[in-house]
């Protein structure tokens, strides 16, 4: 038995929003792979829950007429990793969430839960940041669109108002078109592990594939929240595909990150990983885009 107090059941998104408004202290229960585990560990005893797991309106991945890809928050990691739109346009996101846990966890864990938890190690977070995703946050008062870049305040703290529910994750066509990404999760085990460090890079090359047209890079576990490195991005944009680019991406990343020592790894090792994973992910993304370093 889970030791929660009241389970409020929403049958529609509207009902969920009304419940959320009436019970601001209640936690939103999506796939439960964080909340139900914490309950079994005795950490959330006596909490109230709003169950939104059954809301199929919050599932699915679609393309809008303007080419934006909308991922609904209750999509499981398996849903994301196997969806044709993701495989075709943002395969790196599928590759990233495919590295979470094991099959059972990927079948239940949701992408919305992954980012609303606000932890820096969320495997979907760095790729969504690197693709400049925006979030659709809905309350009884209406819809608020927020750049995902502004969502994380600190560890476990996100800009989700007491009466809001995440109802959509949007990646604009401008972000994914002609863009190729690569994610590296550095962990101690091949499965069922949390990232020691994660790095997601995506590039859009010039037509002749000789220079970077647009470079984006984000990290997980390199700071209290998932972060993009604007310094690395600024130094890479317009740059030729050479060793200097790789050097500047690595050094630029080091300017923006602020990792800490934890039982998983020391700060020094994480800084080393930041530079090395930035380099490796950049090379891989450029190769996927049809470019070549020193080519």
């Amino acid at each position, binding site marked *: *038995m*889970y030791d929660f107090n009241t389970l409020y059941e929403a049958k529609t998104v509207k009902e969920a929003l009304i419940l959320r408004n009436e019970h601001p202290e209640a936690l939103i229960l999506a796939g439960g792979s964080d909340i139900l585990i914490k309950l079994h560990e005795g950490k959330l005893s006596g909490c109230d829950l709003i169950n939104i797991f059954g809301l199929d309106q919050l599932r699915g991945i679609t393309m809008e007429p303007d080419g934006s890809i909308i991922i609904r928050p209750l999509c499981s990691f398996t849903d994301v990793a196997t969806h044709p739109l993701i495989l075709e346009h943002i395969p790196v996101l599928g590759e990233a969430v495919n590295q979470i846990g094991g099959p059972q966890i990927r079948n239940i864990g949701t992408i919305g839960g992954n980012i609303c938890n606000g932890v820096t190690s969320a495997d979907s977070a760095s790729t969504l940041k690197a693709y400049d995703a925006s979030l659709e946050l809905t309350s009884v008062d209406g819809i608020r669109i927020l750049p995902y870049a502004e969502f994380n305040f600190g560890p476990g703290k996100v800009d989700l108002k007491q009466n809001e529910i995440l109802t959509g994750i949007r990646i604009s066509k401008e972000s994914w078109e002609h863009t190729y990404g690569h994610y590296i999760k550095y962990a101690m085990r091949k499965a069922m592990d949390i990232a020691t460090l994660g790095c997601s890079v995506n590039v859009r090359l010039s037509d002749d594939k000789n220079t970077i047209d647009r470079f984006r890079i984000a990290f997980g576990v390199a700071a209290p929240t998932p972060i993009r490195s604007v310094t690395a991005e600024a130094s890479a944009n317009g740059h030729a595909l050479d060793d200097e680019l790789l050097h500047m991406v690595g050094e630029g990343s080091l300017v923006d990150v602020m990792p800490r020592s934890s039982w998983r790894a020391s700060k020094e090792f994480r800084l080393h990983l930041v530079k090395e994973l930035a380099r490796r992910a950049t090379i891989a993304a450029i190769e996927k885009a049809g470019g070549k370093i020193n080519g």
Partner: protein
Amino acid sequence: MARKLVSCTVNGTKRHYHIDVRASLSDMLRNEEGLDSIKHGCDVGECGACTVLIDGKPFNSCIYLAIWAEGKSILTVEGLNDVKTGISDIQQAFIDAGAVQCGFCTPGFIMASIPIIESDKPASRDEIRRQVAGNLCRCTGYEKIVDAIEKTQKKRIAERKSSS
């Protein structure tokens, strides 16, 4: 505490349970249905000993609310047995390969392996390992388990080819 009626299909039979909303799926299937193949190992989604198939996909039943099973079809190891032919090929393969030692993890591994052996796409040993990465075994060292799954998968693919 609040109770709720849950209607679902368990091992091919339509069932109804009047269940405490705080129950996990593993609580419901073990306590109401006596399906003891489902093990409460870690209770936090790490070990996979409670794995069941829900609409054909593996889930940890320890971190799944019983009420979420409404309208779903659930399969456990008990549902693999055939009255006429006895235990299933994958169970026999685990026995033959020596993939069972203490046996506690075995039902979970067998359920996690069902999507592999039912797929027409041959899985490499690495892919098999990836598919059962959510299940822990502290006895066998995994090799025999991979052997059993690999062998059953090959047998099933051959059977499907010869019957089509």
